[in-house]
């Protein structure tokens, strides 16, 4: 053992000694705090909107922590036989937290509140993927990326009386989505499409 590594080991043992018990306890708490913080992090715009409205009359809310999703999808994965569901559960496993808020019949969350929220979310690096509006119903899908990962996915559905808010913190990468598209193309669509196309060619009269 070199002099430096020996010194390091001695220092570590000193830290763990009863004299330094308090310090070592905090030392072990650090990873735990880091894990907790990483699972709680929501962009300010999203968390303030959720906190502001979740307790209003007529609003139902639910937060599912990542560990529960992980455990739930893991158990479900073992229980179900259907391969398609298993593939979807693999993707769902990458959801690290799910926040859900729903207001039915006379939503106390006004369209102006939602507009402001969408505006704030944009300022918080959320990007719009799709906006669909038909009459008084509006659907917004927004994403916030971090590196290769889709860190946050936000779904908002709003009409005259109802409102649905779904915020997902995920570790989903584009390659995960590609994998699942590949799977379904392989299983459901691709071969059928190819067969249909071949059948069409056979039926087509040659001029």
């Amino acid at each position, binding site marked *: 053992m070199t002099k430096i590594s020996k010194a390091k080991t001695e220092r570590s043992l000193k830290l763990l000694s009863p004299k330094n018990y308090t310090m070592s306890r905090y030392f072990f708490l650090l990873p735990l705090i880091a894990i907790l913080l990483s699972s709680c992090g929501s962009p300010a715009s999203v968390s303030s909107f959720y906190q502001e409205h979740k307790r209003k009359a007529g609003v139902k809310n639910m937060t599912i922590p990542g560990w529960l999703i992980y455990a739930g999808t893991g158990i479900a994965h073992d229980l179900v036989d259907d391969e398609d569901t298993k593939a979807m559960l693999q993707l769902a496993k990458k959801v690290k937290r799910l926040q859900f808020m729903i207001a039915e019949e006379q939503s106390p969350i006004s369209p102006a509140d939602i507009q402001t929220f969408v505006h704030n979310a944009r300022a918080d690096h959320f*990007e719009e*993927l799709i906006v669909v*509006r038909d009459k008084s119903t509006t659907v917004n899908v927004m994403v916030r990326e971090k590196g290769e990962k889709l860190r946050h996915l936000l779904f908002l559905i709003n009409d005259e009386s109802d409102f649905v808010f779904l915020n997902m913190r995920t570790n989903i990468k*584009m*390659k995960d989505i590609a994998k699942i*598209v590949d799977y379904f193309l392989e299983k459901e669509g*691709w071969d059928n499409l190819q067969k249909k196309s071949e059948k069409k*060619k056979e039926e087509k009269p040659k001029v």
Partner: protein
Amino acid sequence: MKYLKVLLLTMLLAPAFSADAQSQINAIDKYFQQYVEDERFTVVYISPKLFQMIGKLDIDKFDSDRESQAIMEIAQDLQGLRILVSEDDAMQLYQEAKAKINTDEYEVLMTVRDRDGDNVEFLVRDDGGDIIHELLLLVGGDEFVMLSFVGALDLNKISQLAKTIEDDENK
């Protein structure tokens, strides 16, 4: 000194040209913005981000298929899609949209008009080369439709796709 004058002139004129192009883009953008909150309209907006994400998808099945590869190559160049649809005052909206289009900027590809008074107009905004920057579709009649595809649609890639489909069909 001569080069300096040319450089200065270019610097002075460049913003003027870009402002002109910008004002035209803004006319169509403004039209969308004007009606995006109007409840008479059905609005669909697919952002450049989604097209970017689709372009990033590395799907093995597509790699083995020439047709899908060609489609993905085109999809990578698309930057956004906006659709406005309304059944109220369709003809008036159609005329209003047409009036906003600068004919110097957009070129009419095709116009169709039937006896019932339905009008369909395909317009493109390009740089004179093989790249189309915007494909605009206007429909006026029973309903008004305005569809704007923004991106860099390469005509060579489109013809390649058409060729691939044709080859596959002839196999």
